[in-house]
């Protein structure tokens, strides 16, 4: 198990932690936190996918400053496409979080509790 695989393993571990919180916890807020952790774990995985170091130095951010040309960026910089994917994924995660928190507020209003074990109106 080489050392450069470690960040990927940690990202998957974070995903599993989020999944555990989502599945095993009964409090609605903890479920929401689990959802958030899962989202951010996948974002982290996407960051790792785009990582690229050329020439043994430090990774270069894909920002076009006046002393660089686009060819330099294409050759040496970190892959910017996963970063665009991550931005979109963060926005989607934000929207889902807003919606689920609004649902949680209204759930508390209707049921009087955050315990999903007590919300068993639908069954069968």
């Amino acid at each position, binding site marked *: 198990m080489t050392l450069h695989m470690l960040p990927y393993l940690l990202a998957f571990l974070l995903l599993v932690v989020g999944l555990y919180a989502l599945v095993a916890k009964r409090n609605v807020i903890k479920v929401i936190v689990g959802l958030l952790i899962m989202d951010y774990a996948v974002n982290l995985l996407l960051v790792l996918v785009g990582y690229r170091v050329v020439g043994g130095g430090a990774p270069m951010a894909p*920002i*076009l*400053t*006046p002393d660089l040309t686009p060819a330099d960026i294409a050759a040496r910089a970190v892959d910017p496409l996963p970063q665009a994917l991550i*931005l979109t994924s963060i*926005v989607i995660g934000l929207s889902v979080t*807003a919606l689920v*928190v*609004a649902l949680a*507020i*209204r759930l508390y*209003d209707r049921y009087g509790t955050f315990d999903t074990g007590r919300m068993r109106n639908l069954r069968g």
Partner: protein
Amino acid sequence: MRGMSLIVKNTTRLVAGFIALFGAYIVLYGHVTPGGGFAGGVIVAGALVLVVLAFGERFSREVISHEVVRASDAAGALAFLGVALFGYLAPNAGAFFANFPDLLGTPGNLLSAGTIPISNLAIGVKVGAGLFGVFLALALFRRRGEQRLMVPDAGRLDSEAQR
């Protein structure tokens, strides 16, 4: 929702404008520096949330009402869609979302990159208004039985929750 103490109110008076200005800077320079529409919009929404938290909901309703928030939300989104449709008119390669090649200045200038700054502005307005609207909807939700200050909850007409 009542406001907070005098110290918070005075600090907010000083600071909220700068936060909004910083957000606007991130939005407007989005094609040159990291950031862009979404990040700048979030910061602007943060400034608005700070004002509401510090001064209370009744005060901020006179400054920015819920209708204005909804309207700017829709306006920002429609402006972005308009920029995308405007790409059909781009010369010799008109397509959805196409940029205008003769408007592309030198990279690094503020006035460059064609229609991208306009898209950034539209997204900044939409995200700012949208997040602030989300905050208002979450924080000002009234439970059943309490007095309704905002628009009533969506739902069935015959449910007792509408009373």
